[in-house]
């Protein structure tokens, strides 16, 4: 393919912006931006949501490091949420642990259990060449329906008219740092996870070898690296992160398992992971940006009746532009 000239791209971009001006999209974009970033309440909410988004994007990013697509983030978040719910409601009264220590134990448990499910998917990929894309997408629906079954059946609180579980104990719920904002320990956890991810991927030999598997699995196998095991490791970490996201949504935000479980983090996380390409630290600004877009779109929907789905269109267009830009830079 002949290289596209930069001037063509600039002209095309300008044409798109001018076209957007005529249909009023630019005004909506400005509204979204100003609501999400230019007010104290908006900024607080954006940062709060960005922490969850960063964790779920880290999940997709870790799988993508070996070239695998974890499109089952939504399902794994549900698994983490339900496991954490079970732990908080049934396990906490049985264990004589202080609440922070219990949360830590639960974190490790949820990480391990959700990670094991992901590891199973990667095993199928490594052993049978089963497309992880289809398996993870199918697993989303499976986990969703299974969680619905639990919420409508065995887990439903006796006193509740709605299909929802009992509330988790008061002392296990996270407290906000500042009055009037929801920002809490989630932010610290997200930062720690990204730093740990950075250290693992960039500073350890095992983390670095994942990149080789992505670039050329056959060459890796030939040179003695066990490709299947690396697939399993990356998917274990990836699903584990998604599980933790689910657990943290429970203890910080929902405090109970309800029947609205399709939270839609999956799509946005995939977009962020694609945009990050190789650099894990880019997760931070991109999560903040996209959390802002999602939050702002929600506010604009309530105030001006512009459907918030415009945020998804915006995300997809950004990915198209990035992919095309990358192709133009590299030429053929």
């Amino acid at each position, binding site marked *: *393919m002949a290289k596209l000239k930069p001037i063509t791209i600039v002209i095309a971009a300008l044409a798109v912006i001018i076209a957007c001006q005529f249909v009023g999209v630019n005004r909506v974009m400005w509204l979204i931006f100003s609501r999400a970033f230019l007010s104290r309440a908006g900024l607080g909410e954006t940062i709060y949501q960005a922490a969850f988004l960063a964790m779920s994007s880290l999940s997709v990013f870790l799988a993508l490091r070996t070239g695998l*697509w974890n*499109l089952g983030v939504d399902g794994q978040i549900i698994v983490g949420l339900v496991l954490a719910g079970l732990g908080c409601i049934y396990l906490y009264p049985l264990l004589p642990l202080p609440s922070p220590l219990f949360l830590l134990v639960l974190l490790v448990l949820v990480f391990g259990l959700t990670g094991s499910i992901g590891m199973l998917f990667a095993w*199928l990929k490594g*052993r*049978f*060449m*089963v*497309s992880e*894309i*289809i*398996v993870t*997408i*199918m*697993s*989303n*629906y*499976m986990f969703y*329906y*299974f969680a*619905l*079954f639990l919420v*409508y*059946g065995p887990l439903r609180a006796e006193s509740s008219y709605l299909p929802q579980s009992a509330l988790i104990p008061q002392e296990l719920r996270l407290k906000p740092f500042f009055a009037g904002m929801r920002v809490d320990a989630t932010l610290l956890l997200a930062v720690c996870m990204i730093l740990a991810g950075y250290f693992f991927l960039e500073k350890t030999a095992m983390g670095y070898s994942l990149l080789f598997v992505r670039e050329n699995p056959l060459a890796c196998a030939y040179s003695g690296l066990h490709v299947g095991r690396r697939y399993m490791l990356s998917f274990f970490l990836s699903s584990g992160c998604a599980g933790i996201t689910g657990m943290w949504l429970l203890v910080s935000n929902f405090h109970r398992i309800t029947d609205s479980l399709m939270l839609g983090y999956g*799509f946005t996380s*995939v*977009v962020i992971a*694609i945009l990050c390409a190789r650099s894990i630290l880019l997760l931070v600004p991109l999560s903040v940006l996209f959390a802002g877009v999602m939050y702002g779109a929600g506010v604009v929907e309530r105030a001006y*009746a*512009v*459907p918030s*789905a*415009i*945020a*998804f*269109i*915006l*995300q*997809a*267009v950004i*990915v*198209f532009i990035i*992919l*095309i830009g*990358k*192709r133009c830079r590299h030429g*053929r």
Partner: protein
Amino acid sequence: MAGDAGVLQLLSGSGAAMVRMSLPLLWAASGELMVEKCGMLNVGIEGVMLLGAFWGYVAGVYFHSIGLAFCVAALIGLAAGCLLGLLYITLRVDTIAAGIAFNIFAFGITEYFFKSLLARMAGDPPQIGVWQVPFLRRLPLVGEWFAEQNGCLYATCALLLLLYALLYHTQFGLKLRVIGDNPLAAESAGIPVRSLRYVCLMLSTAAVAVGGAILSLVNVSAYTSNMTSGRGFIALALVIFGCRRIRYVLCGGVMFGLLEAFQLRLQVLYPHVPYQLLSMLPYAITIGVLVLVSGKHRTYSSS
């Protein structure tokens, strides 16, 4: 209800529903089959199907004509194919990333217009009439399955026959298969690889979009948010475990139709079994069959 009579009722009623449920999957799988035959993989199939389901439904409500609705769905499919072709073939971006982004794009577009356009449109979608074919009805055992079917069934049969003829009995099909096997060899033999891939992709996405429209207009008679719920990916899986052969894809499509019809009927006949567990079945079985089949066959061809 749980006696023999219940089981018989389950089976006889499931037959007709099975045929109906398998139609959208068969259209989508035929489309994907064609694309894979010429060595590409369209992960954006779910999005194309969703677009077809939505715009087909909107056109059905607006024009109140089933024929026009399918035409609009096919046109939307062609347009989607054009966009995907631009990404996959001309710009040669990462196919999987672009496909996933296209799915998000389609989800955003349908949600946006679902809330802003369809919510304000009044009226019902057009009804499709029953086509009775006399000799089919008199067939033993399966006769009842075909008694109440509409034109979509016969259109699907025609599509599969046409696809078979196109792929295996025309020059065009031969060229497509050559491109799928070895694009470089095809290019050096003077076959216009890129333009044929464009044509193939656009025809395929038109079929996939019509499959979506069958789902919303004929099977459900309503549009709900994200209504394809993974069916596009099930169609993709069908092509993979059908080893890209029309007869296996047909068998797989019918099997999934049966499964879906079966679980819906089970929900009615055995209300004490939680419906959520039955709804998990098609997805769980997709994974199961994929594992059983994939051990022997490499899934993706290099393009």
